[in-house]
């Protein structure tokens, strides 16, 4: 069975500082990995995905994520945080060995960027 863990309920960072939001996954096969962002009372917006190839994936709004197979991690990063980045971030996984195409989401991490 697929699962995603986001160990931090909340991450606090000062504007201009780098940020990291952690995600680890568990799948029976190889994973497809995704990051989504959710602003209050809004839908989930796609940020980036890892399918294959380069372990460092670049996405929207300056975000990037690094796939680490040995550590089964896919941490979200940004070199310089903005106050407007404050939101709820979800990591999601799809197992290539699974015939289903649904995404399984982690519990979410609230990012708070202070001015």
């Amino acid at each position, binding site marked *: 069975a697929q699962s995603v863990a986001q160990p931090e309920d909340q991450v606090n960072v000062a504007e201009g500082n780098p940020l990291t939001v952690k995600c680890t996954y568990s799948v029976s096969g190889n994973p497809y990995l*995704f990051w989504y962002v959710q602003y209050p*009372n*809004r839908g989930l917006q796609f940020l980036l995905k890892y*399918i294959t190839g380069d372990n460092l994936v670049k996405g929207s709004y300056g975000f990037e994520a690094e796939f680490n197979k040995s550590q089964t991690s896919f941490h979200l990063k940004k070199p310089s945080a903005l106050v407007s980045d404050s939101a709820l971030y979800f990591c999601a996984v799809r197992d290539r060995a699974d015939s289903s*195409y649904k995404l399984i989401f982690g519990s979410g991490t609230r990012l708070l960027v202070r001015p």
Partner: protein
Amino acid sequence: AAGVIQSPRHLIKEKRETATLKCYPIPRHDTVYWYQQGPGQDPQFLISFYEKMQSDKGSIPDRFSAQQFSDYHSELNMSSLELGDSALYFCASSLGQVDTGELFFGEGSRLTVL
């Protein structure tokens, strides 16, 4: 660009009533997914449809049913509503059964059961 449209955006119902949520996928998208997000929770997969056929089923209660129509829009029908059904219900769409593809989410329908 057109996005996933969900209606209604907000719905208030009494216990034991019924509710119907509608989802209009992005044009040409033939796959629809329904998720339920409780307060402070992650989105939980309910059910999905591909080309008007159910393609996968998750933790959807027997009181709920869904279908996808010929124009690819989908409806989630919920009966005998319980307080615990209060949640944000998301619909997402994608083009085909492509395992590398991301899902595109609507803004959600917030159901409150009193």
